C-alpha cells in the first residue's frame, strides 16, 4: 500500500501549523485513510511556551499511530495502546509509538534530528499507515526533506507586512521549482564540503557535482560558475542558507543547472492572519487583514493557497 508523507512547516511559530494539521487529520478520517503522526520537536501544548497565549490543541482520532515522547503520554490515561518503544531520545524522554484508542488532545514531542526522524518514520511504516504527517517545530525545517510533500504555513506571526510575507513565499516557491535528480547515468562526483569548511572551494573535475550538506550561498555561486551542474541535497537545505533575498536574486540570475537529491513537492501554502502582539511586557492576540493576505498570496503564487479556517481543500 502506498504511503504519503506530508510535512507541515511553519515559517515562524504561531503561523497555523496545528490548525492545518488538525484539518488534515480530519480530512484523512473522512477519506477513511489510516494516519500516523510525529513531529520535529514539541507541539500541541495548551499555552505557548514563549508567548504564554492559549494555542489551538491537536486532537487525534482513534486508530491514529503516534510517535511522541513518553513524558507527553503521562496525562493520557486509557486512551492509547503502546505499540513499541524506540531507541530515540528527546529532551522529554524516550520516543514511543502508540495507537490512539479514544479521541484525545495530544502533545507531540517527536525526534529532533534528521537521522532520528528517518528512524522513527521507518518504524511507523511498519504499521501500514496510508498517510503520515510530520508536525514541524518553530521554523525548524532541516529534517523535513524526508517528506513527500510539504505544506508551508505563514502569516502575521512571521511578519505583519503582507508584502514581505508574499515575497518570502515567492522565494520558497522558486527554490522548490527545480527538479529531482535520480542520479541516472554516469559522471557524478560528490563534493566533500560543508558550509562550515568551504572557505576554500576546490576545482572539481566532474561536471556533475553532488552537494550533500548546506553550503553558504557565496560558495554555491562559485561552484555553479566554475562547473556545470549541481545536484544539491534538497530545497530545504537551500533555504537554510539564511539569505533569502540573495537566494532569489541568484536563482533568477540565469539558467542554472540545479537539481535535488531529495525533492518534496510544495503542496500548498496556508495563511493565518493571527500574530502575538508584544507590548514590552506581555503578548496579546492581534490579526492582520485576512482577506488581503489570502488575495495577495494567491495572486503571486502558482502554488495553491488556503486559509484553512475558511477554505476546505481536499489535498
Amino acid at each position: 500500500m502506498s504511503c504519503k508523507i506530508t510535512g507541515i512547516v511553519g515559517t515562524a511559530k504561531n503561523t497555523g501549523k496545528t490548525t492545518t494539521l488538525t484539518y488534515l487529520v480530519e480530512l484523512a478520517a473522512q477519506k477513511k485513510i489510516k494516519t500516523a503522526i510525529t513531529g520535529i520537536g514539541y507541539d500541541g501544548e495548551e499555552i505557548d511556551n514563549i508567548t504564554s497565549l492559549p494555542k489551538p490543541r491537536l486532537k487525534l482520532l482513534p486508530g491514529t499511530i503516534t510517535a511522541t515522547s513518553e513524558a507527553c503520554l503521562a496525562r493520557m490515561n486509557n486512551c492509547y495502546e503502546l505499540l513499541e518503544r524506540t531507541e530515540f531520545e528527546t529532551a522529554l524522554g524516550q520516543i514511543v509509538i502508540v495507537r490512539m484508542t479514544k479521541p484525545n488532545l495530544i502533545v507531540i514531542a517527536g525526534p529532533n534530528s534528521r537521522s532520528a526522524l528517518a528512524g522513527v518514520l521507518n518504524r511507523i511504516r511498519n504499521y501500514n499507515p496510508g498517510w503520515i504527517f510530520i508536525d514541524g517545530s518553530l521554523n525548524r525545517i532541516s529534517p523535513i526533506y524526508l517528506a513527500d510533500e510539504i505544506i508551508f504555513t505563514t502569516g502575521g506571526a512571521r511578519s505583519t507586512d503582507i508584502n514581505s510575507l508574499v515575497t518570502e513565499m515567492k522565494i520558497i516557491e522558486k527554490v522548490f521549482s527545480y527538479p529531482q535528480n535520480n542520479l541516472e547515468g554516469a559522471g557524478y562526483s560528490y563534493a566533500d564540503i560543508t558550509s562550515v569548511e568551504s572557505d576554500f572551494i576546490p576545482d572539481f573535475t566532474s561536471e556533475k557535482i553532488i552537494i550533500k550538506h548546506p553550503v553558504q550561498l557565496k560558495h554555491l555561486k562559485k561552484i555553479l560558475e566554475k562547473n556545470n551542474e549541481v545536484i544539491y541535497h534538497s530545497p530545504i537545505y537551500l533555504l537554510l542558507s539564511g539569505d533569502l533575498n540573495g537566494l532569489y536574486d541568484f536563482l533568477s540570475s540565469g539558467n542554472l543547472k540545479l537539481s535535488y537529491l531529495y525533492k518534496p513537492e510544495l503542496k500548498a501554502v496556508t495563511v493565518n492572519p493571527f500574530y502575538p502582539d508584544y507590548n514590552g511586557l506581555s503578548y496579546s492576540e492581534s490579526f492582520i487583514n485576512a482577506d488581503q493576505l489570502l488575495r495577495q498570496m494567491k495572486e503571486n503564487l502558482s502554488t495553491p493557497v488556503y486559509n484553512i479556517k475558511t477554505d476546505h481543500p481536499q489535498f
Partner: protein
Amino acid sequence: MMAKKILCVPLDPVHDVGIKIIRAELDKNGFITELLSPDLSVHEIIKKAASRQYDFILVSRTLGYGVAELLASFIDQLDAAGIREKSKVVIGGKAITPQLAAELGFDKGFDEHSTIEELIAYLNGSEINFKSSGINRCKKDISADHAYKFFDKEVEKLLNQIADKLLLFVKDKTTPGVERAKIRREIIHSGSTDSRKKLVKKYIELCDAVIVKSYSDNQFPLAVRRISESEITSLKKFLSEKNPIHSRKIQHNEHQPLVFKFLGSGCPMMDIVHGKICERSGINGFLIINPSWEARYEGLLDGLLTHQNDGTITSFGNIKLIRDSLDKSTLLTVRAHRGLNTPETIVLAGEAGADLTKINLVYGALGAGTDPLRLAVDGIEAIKLAAEYKMPFDIPGNDELSGVPAWKTLAGLLINVMIGLKLNAKPVLKPLFCYGPHIVINKLMSENYIDYNAAKIAALKNIVDAPIWPGEPIAFMTQTEDRVQSANSTSYHAALAAGIGVDAITIASTDEAYSRGPISVSSRLDSIHAAADGFNFMGNSKFSTTSNFELYTEMIQQKIKDILRTAASKDNLPEAIYDGVLGSKADGAYPGKFGLNTVAKK
C-alpha cells in the same frame, strides 16, 4: 574511560558569565572543555563544532524576544551539517523548560534552577532520576532537637507552681466543648449510619442554634455552602495534572528555619491551589486560619464547605481535603485555641492527619477571646488530645499586638510550655517579630529592629531549651501597601531569624493586610522569594547587635520572672488572667467573654 569533550557556546552577544562558571565546574570534574567567545556568528560556531569530535555542545542563552527562532535555526544548521550525529546539543538558560528544549530541537534543557550535579550526571550518562511527582523532601519534626531543659531554675519552679495549680483546678471540671470533642471522635469512628445519627443528635444538643440548623435543616451560616461534587472532581483533575516537581528550597543551609504560611481564604480549594504553588516554591508548611465567628459558637459545622469571607471552615472534611492534597512532606497546622471548640478542633486536626496545632491558654482568653476559665478547661483537654495525636502545639504570642508588653506575652507562652510538658505534649514557643503598640509607645525599636526582636528570643533561650518559631507572621506591623517594601521587610526579618537560630518562621504575603479579599498568589510568592533571599544573604553569618540587646534581654528575662511570681501567687491561671497579670485593660487586653458560665463540674 576517555574524558568527554565539551564545546561551551555562549550564543549571546554579551552574556557569557553562566557558561564560564559551568565550564570551570566541568574542568574540575575532568571534562575537556573549550569555550567560544560570545561574539561568533552561527556559521562560525558551526564551523568550530564540525572541526572536532565533541561529545556535547552546551549552548547558553537567555530566552528573549525572537531568540527561539534563532535557536531553532541554529539547531537546523547543526543538523544539516551532520553534527548532530556525533554531538548531543544541550541548552541552558533562564526560562528554559524541558518542553521548550524539545520544541527547539535540543537534546536536553537546563534552567536557572538546575544544579551542576544534574548537568554532570547527564553528561556522564547517569541522569539523576527525579520522582515524576512529589517534591522530594522529608517532613521535619520541629521539636526533635530540643530537650525542654530549663536553664532558669527559678522560672521553672514558678511555672511548676502555676501549672500544677491549674491542672488541679480543672481536674473536676468539664465544658460543652470538652464533651463535644468526645462525641466528635465517636462520630468520626462510627461504623453505621444509625449510630452516627444517634451521635449527631447527641452532639447538636450541645451546640448553638446556628450550628444546629446546619445539621437539622442543611442551613448554613451566611456565605457558607457545601462544595459540589463537580468542584471536587475538577480539583482532583488539577492535582493529578499539576503535581509540583523539583521544588525549590528556601533555606540556604540545613540550619535555617522552616518557613510557614497561612491558608484561610475561605475556600479550601483555593487554599489547596495556593498551597501547591507555594510548595513548588519551597514552603515547608501551612497554618489553616478559620473564620473569626467560628470561635463564638458552640459546635462546628461538618462536611466539605466553602466560605465566601475570610477564614476556612474548620471541618473534618476541609482539613482532610487540604491535608490529603498537600505533599506528604508539607507540615499542616490547625488553629485550635480561639473560641469554644478548642478540644474538638484538635480531634478534627488529629484525625485528619494534621501535623501541628495551635493552643495558647492565655492569648486565647484575651483580646475578644474566650472566657479564661472556659479556655483553661478546654485548653487542658486540647493539650492532652494534642499529645495523644502526637501533634506538637505552637503557642502564638499575638497578645503583644493588643498592646501587651513582650514579657507578659512571653510569660504566658512559658506557662503553656510547662502545662504542655506536664501533659506529655511538645510545646513550641512562638514569640512575635513585630512592631507592636507597646514597642512603638516605649520606643523600644526606635534605633533598630534587631535588638528588641533578638532580645525576646535570647531571653527565651536563656530560660528553656524549647523549639522557637517566631510568628505570627514575622514583620507584623512593619509592612505597608507597597509590596516591594513588604517583601523587603519579610526578607530582613527572615534573615534575622536565620542569624539568631530559630526552628521556624511564619511569613505574611506581601498583600496580607491590604488584599481587600483573598490573598493573591503572586504576593504569596513575593514573600517566599523574599525569605529565601534573606536566608541566602545571611547564610551562616549573624546580624550584629548593639549594647541595647543585652539590656533588653536582661530586662525581658527579669520582667518575665516578676510576672510569673505574681501569677504564681494567684489561686489559678484564670484568676491571674482576670486580674490582668498577663495583660491588663491598661495594656489593651481584655479577658474574653465567650463561654462565660459554661464550665460545669464533671
